[in-house]
């Protein structure tokens, strides 16, 4: 293992994290809700009346973020090496897995760990471990 100092962005990443924490804080305190993206999106697939607008509004905010930033910042960099087949397989796994495991990086990773929940700690270790193992296989065994 070596550290990728060239791509390491400590300041920006810490700032991004503080913004994520602030958004999660506002959501639990103002709306009484957990900012868990897979749960917010998945809940729309089993719609219940009175439980739709806040979900749609949150997701819209998430989607328009790059549009709102566009006038002030250089275009967002996104390098996506995965091809169409891999993207589809990955999307299916993320969709099924986050619903079956009841959370993703935001719900278990940020909010759950902030609540000091052992359940979310186990989930976070499981998905981080599986992510690291997958990248290891793809990059170092198959490549």
């Amino acid at each position, binding site marked *: 293992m070596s550290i990728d100092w060239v791509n*390491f962005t400590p300041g920006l990443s810490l700032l991004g*994290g*503080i913004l994520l924490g602030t958004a999660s804080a506002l959501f639990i305190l103002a709306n009484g809700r957990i900012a868990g993206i897979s749960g917010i999106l998945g809940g729309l697939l089993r719609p219940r009346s009175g439980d739709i607008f806040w979900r749609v509004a949150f997701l819209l*905010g998430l*989607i328009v*973020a790059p549009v709102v930033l566009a006038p002030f910042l250089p275009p967002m960099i996104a390098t996506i090496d*995965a091809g169409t087949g891999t993207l589809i397989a990955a999307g299916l796994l993320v969709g099924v897995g986050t619903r079956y495991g009841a959370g993703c*990086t935001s719900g278990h990773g940020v909010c759950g760990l902030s*609540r000091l929940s052992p359940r979310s700690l186990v989930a976070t270790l499981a998905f981080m471990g599986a992510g690291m193992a997958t990248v290891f296989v793809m990059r170092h065994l198959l490549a």
Partner: protein
Amino acid sequence: MKKTFDTASAFIVGLLFGIGLIFGGMTNPAKVIGFLDVAGNWDPSLALVMGGAILVGVVAFRFARQRTQSFLGGAMHLPASTDINQRLIIGSLLFGAGWGLAGFCPGPALTSLGTGNPKAVIFVVAMVAGMAIYELADHFWHQPRRLNAQ
């Protein structure tokens, strides 16, 4: 009126969350994979994203736990489940495998939709399909038991 405030607040929080994901580097799959690649040239940035978020989150949730009502006058929907079961672990393992394959998790994938990136569109469509498959499977899985109970 409360509904309107709830909806407006959710939009602002979603926007702030998206901006945080962009600043943090989470919307760049190559960077996410650089973090997950602990055996290669490791980019520790995302540990700081998590750390920064949890730093603020710990304080907020400590405060939230003492409240009986949200600022906007609604219920506090704090998760009740503390179960560490097979569902939690298998689901999280599947999610992690998908996360490692493409470098996208749900939030950043949705935020990337806003840039019109066709690869993000493909991923999100597949992800929503995966969530729908889960809903259907869950529905049919529980159907026989419901019938037996009658």
